[in-house]
């Protein structure tokens, strides 16, 4: 019996040990990260961060101390932003990176008890929707919002729930240079419906790929629902192939399965950089834009750092660093005095759908595309 007792406690100890390993190992890993952050160069922190939210819109909110470390949910720049932010402000930031849909799933599932302070995504309509639901801080504007160019000031909603940090093409025309010369390649979006390109065109599925929605939304908002559906129907009947995500489009293009496609801008440029035989065409009528915006969670417990983060993103120096060092570095900056990548087409014309319209019709448009998947 005693032996048995020992066995029992043996099992208990084993279980406990396993749990301990998990906890300490995971905790240890966290510490490593913390240290890595700490050791990165800290360039003269701004004197006082809590002072930085010099609210333009007069807010009566009392200044409170932050409770913990700022947590930002984002879909790009996760590898460089913690070091840059700490260098600029002396503040630490935890990031959770994922694709747009994953981040939005987390944000929505956490609604009862949010873990994020700032969300920074290149899907303006979805963030607009969060603002409509009352999940975002309203009526506050960062000092650096004054740096926004006129085009980008227009993107800020009337209740100031989010601020644009830049935009890139949700789709540019790309073609396989082994298949077409520059002259032969499609030059406008309408060309996708032409006989010359029958069965040779591809795009990403707006029902699954986050960046593909702003692309189709622009057509729908210009043409309105019915005409928009007609336009895409004409592409479908021309044998256009729809791939789940942009990387699949890229793979199909380089493999020669399709000869031209609408592809997200940074994907297009990184293919060119990787030495793939890809040409990029910016259509004259403009490429539908994905606007990257940042917003603060209404009940954030780290309000000071969150405000500092938004202000930091609208600093020309920050946007220049994102362009110079980031992986998603092909984008149009939202503030003045920043130079885009030298190899990015200087005449790149971006056109974005109205966020309110796109947000309102998002479910309808996505459902239409999803149902198309069965045809």
């Amino acid at each position, binding site marked *: 019996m005693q032996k048995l007792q020992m066995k029992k406690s043996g099992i208990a100890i084993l279980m406990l040990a396993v749990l301990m*390993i998990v906890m300490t190992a995971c905790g240890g890993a966290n510490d490593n990260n913390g240290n890595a952050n700490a050791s990165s160069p800290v360039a003269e922190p701004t004197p006082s961060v809590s002072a930085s939210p010099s609210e333009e819109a007069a807010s009566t909110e009392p200044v409170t101390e932050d409770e913990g470390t700022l947590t930002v949910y984002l879909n790009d720049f996760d590898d460089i932003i913690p070091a840059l932010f700490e260098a600029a402000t002396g503040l630490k930031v935890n990031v959770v990176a994922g694709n747009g849909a994953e981040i939005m799933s987390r944000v929505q599932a956490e609604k009862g008890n949010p873990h994020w302070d700032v969300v920074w995504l290149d899907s303006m309509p979805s963030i607009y929707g969060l603002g409509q639901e009352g999940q975002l801080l309203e009526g506050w504007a960062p000092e650096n919002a004054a740096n926004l160019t006129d085009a980008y000031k227009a993107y800020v909603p009337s209740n100031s729930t989010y601020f644009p940090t830049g935009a890139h093409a949700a789709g540019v025309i790309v073609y396989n240079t082994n298949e077409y010369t520059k002259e032969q390649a499609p030059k406008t979006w309408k060309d996708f419906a032409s006989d010359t390109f029958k069965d040779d065109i591809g795009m990403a599925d707006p029902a699954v790929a986050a960046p593909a929605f702003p692309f189709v939304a622009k057509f729908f908002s210009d043409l309105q629902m019915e005409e928009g559906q007609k336009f895409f129907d004409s592409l479908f009947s021309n044998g256009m192939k729809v791939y789940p995500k942009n*990387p699949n489009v890229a*793979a199909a293009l*380089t493999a*020669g399965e399709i000869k031209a496609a609408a592809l997200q801008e940074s994907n297009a440029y990184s293919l060119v950089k990787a030495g793939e035989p890809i040409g990029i065409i910016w259509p004259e009528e403009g490429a539908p834009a994905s606007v990257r915006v940042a917003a603060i969670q209404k009940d954030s417990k780290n309000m000071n750092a969150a405000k500092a983060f938004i202000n930091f993103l609208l600093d020309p120096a920050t946007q220049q660093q994102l362009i110079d060092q980031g992986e998603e570095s092909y984008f149009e900056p939202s503030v003045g005095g920043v130079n885009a990548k030298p190899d990015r087409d200087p005449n790149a014309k971006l056109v974005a759908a109205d966020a309110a319209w796109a947000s309102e019709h998002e479910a309808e448009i996505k459902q239409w595309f999803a149902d198309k998947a069965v045809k």
Partner: protein
Amino acid sequence: MFRLNQDRLGWLVSLILFVLVLLPLAAVIVQVLLPGVFFGDWQVGDLGLMLEVFKRPLWLKSLEHSIVLACGTTVLATLLGGTLAMIRSSWKFPSARLLDASVWILLITPSFILAQGWVMFAAGGGIAVKVFGWHWVTPAVFQPAGLIVIMTLSKFPLAYLSVHAAMEWKVEQLSEAARLCGASAIRVWRTIQAPLLLPAFLAGAALVFMDTIGDFGLPASIAAVYRYPTLPYSIYSALYTSPIRFDMAGVLSFYLVVLISLAMLLQTYAVKSSRFDFLSARAVPSVPKKAGKLTPYLTIANIAFLLVVIGIPIGANVLMSLFKTQSKGLSLSNLTFSHYRELLDGKTELLTGLWRSLLISSSSALLGLLIGLGIAFVLIYSQFRFKRAIEMMSLVTLAVPGVVLGIGYIFVWNQAWLQSIGLLLYGKPAILVLAAIAGAIPIITRMMVGAMAKVPKSLLDAAQVQGGSLISRVRFILVPLIRGALLSAALAAFGSSVFDLAVNSILFPPNFVTLPVTINKAFEDLNFGYASAATVLGGGIVILIILLLELLLRRKAARK
């Protein structure tokens, strides 16, 4: 003093399964009824959504596709896996061990990696066309029958293991009696051996069905070339819209659960009507016979088969990891090790992520093993009232897409009141362990059940009569008899959870990136070569660990 008995064990595993599996799943399904229940909003949802599945073209098609794909795969994979298992346990041939190893590789490799391999091979500009000039491959693969074949080649291991385990022991006297009475070998097989194996075949079939119907990786990867939306695809598209439709995901998950319940009912019914308790003291371990003249044919057929099921999907991934650019394809000047060098130069988060993934999967495998042992014990030996419910709960995570479970975990483990008792696990690494256990339970439980079914209850009863407690009976009688299966179950659970992307990408805490998340990010950033290299490296390390443990522990067990 609290003394664990069978009934209490039954309640304990029910409770564990309830918390790990049922609660998160119910949290998503309840969204249909009460969409705002976790945010303090008691408004009743639109129940008409339940019937939408028969109206919306996409949903109806997905349901139809899921059923066709799952049924087709179940039939083919069960036949294939069962036949292979019977050949393997009947005859000795040199490459038999390779077959076993391959089955394990297929079992632990996530389906999206296998599927990607197949796409790289069979797509319009893929290896089959470019290197071998086989233009017929593309149209042959990208059609419903082709998908069923690929699915079969990825899922047959479940049926193989089930049947192979059942053939470990046999009661020769039955067959011998028949042979003495003049029955031919075929007749003996048809009237005696096959009926005795039927339950194992059915169990294998049920596993294949559930794993296929819940698979997102394969239909999603194939969809790149050929659109074949299934229920999991529609679940993803409901979640990937904004405002997010948790209620739609709930409806579709509900139908998935209904489908697998039907499959289980069918299996239970079939097993009941064909159950023979045939193991007796006369049972002998079955030893494969020499194949004689057949040996070379068996070996060649086996190797050819493995070249297809392993060579194509894994080989394509390995090739991809060595290409400089994808478009140049297979040529000497286009080969490089740079992606591997990039992995190992320490600048990337990959190695940290790999280490975390290994820790998480090993802890979940160990904890999962304890839970699985308990579940299987209750299922096999106890008279516990809710055995069926336990069996159901232990299988459900096989069929429900990881992302649904992940969102359910957020709902359950992110409620503010949990903070006060220190159980607000969302945002902590521990939640990844819990989710990994939930994901591993089906595999562990099935393997335990298979092994325990062979240990007669009378052995345990004898010990009980002598006063042995439940734990001592398990510890001193059951565990030594099924040690091999315990090891296999733990290793399978470990291997399969390392790459579990869906759960990881929804649940990973801030600054806590794991291996599958890193791989997926590389893929989304178009670093195909890097993503493949990371997959090959990660998979290689996992397989090495498994082989090492297998070698160390099996040998130790054998020496004893």
